[in-house]
């Protein structure tokens, strides 16, 4: 990262406060007692938002060359989506073995 582009501590503190806020929202959402599916979707959405903020500001992807972002993030997302497609089969196989 170019040192001239590096964010200052004030920016980091603002992002840190924002992430604390998101964690507080997660806890409050949990104790609002929604269904498991709704809670899972809510928590995942908030966690993805936090991860995005951490990648862009704490890990400086926002300040690096765009090529780094386009090289890393889509590849990992592709791997994760593929895992999402494969794991249900693994669970189903375990169920078949039980019955």
């Amino acid at each position, binding site marked *: *990262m170019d*040192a001239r582009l*590096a964010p*200052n*501590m004030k920016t*980091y*503190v603002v992002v*840190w406060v924002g*992430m*604390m806020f998101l*964690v507080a929202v*997660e*806890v409050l959402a*949990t*104790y609002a007692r929604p269904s*498991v*599916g709704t*809670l*899972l979707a809510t*928590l*995942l959405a*908030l*966690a993805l938002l*936090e*991860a995005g903020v*951490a*990648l862009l500001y*704490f*890990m*400086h992807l926002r300040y*690096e*060359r765009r*090529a*780094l972002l386009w*090289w*890393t993030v889509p*590849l*990992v997302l592709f*791997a*994760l989506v593929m*895992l*999402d497609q494969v*794991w*249900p089969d*693994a*669970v189903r196989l375990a169920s078949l073995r039980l019955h």
Partner: protein
Amino acid sequence: MSASEVTVTGGHAGALEESPLGIPSHKLAMWLFIMADGATFGAILFAYGFLRVGTPDWTKPFALWPSIANGCIMTVILLSSSLTMLGAGSAARAGHAARCLRWIGATMLLGALFAVLHLREWFAMIHEGWGLKHNPLGGSTLVGATFFGITGLHLLHVVSGVIAIGVVALRFRRGRLGAAHIETVGLYWHFVDLVWMFVFPLVYLLNAR
């Protein structure tokens, strides 16, 4: 290119093509590691997610006090340690070595505190009868297996991170490593924090009583 230019730039550096990503090799290696490790944690968390939703007798082990409260405190500690690591990177870039080392000390302290709180929780749960194959509440034993498996892998990363940061700090103090290396080890630390952003809601909050 003159002979002196070749010498000054370290032999071949001036003759090499610039990296298309614009980052040094140690940082590229760290990004590759993070991508692989991210997929590993992703695999584990996906597997956990399917088991969590698909197991009918899943039990919720975590009460608001002390487990969820402890998890919240651990989250604040880990997030704060990311902030101190960023402080170390900023100080190193500005050439303030002593300030950088103080920030690194704070990061290591917070990382160690996180590990201690985590282990304390583990021992309390083991004392209650939780284990890889034991569920004192009588439901599925997968609850303990997934909890200790996922948090154990993350805890291993935290402890490794504290050690790695300490090693880099020592070499930085001796002048053998620079600000770029502080930033690279910081990348790892922020990744550990990022993973916890998924572990805390999915493993703790989703199992809150």
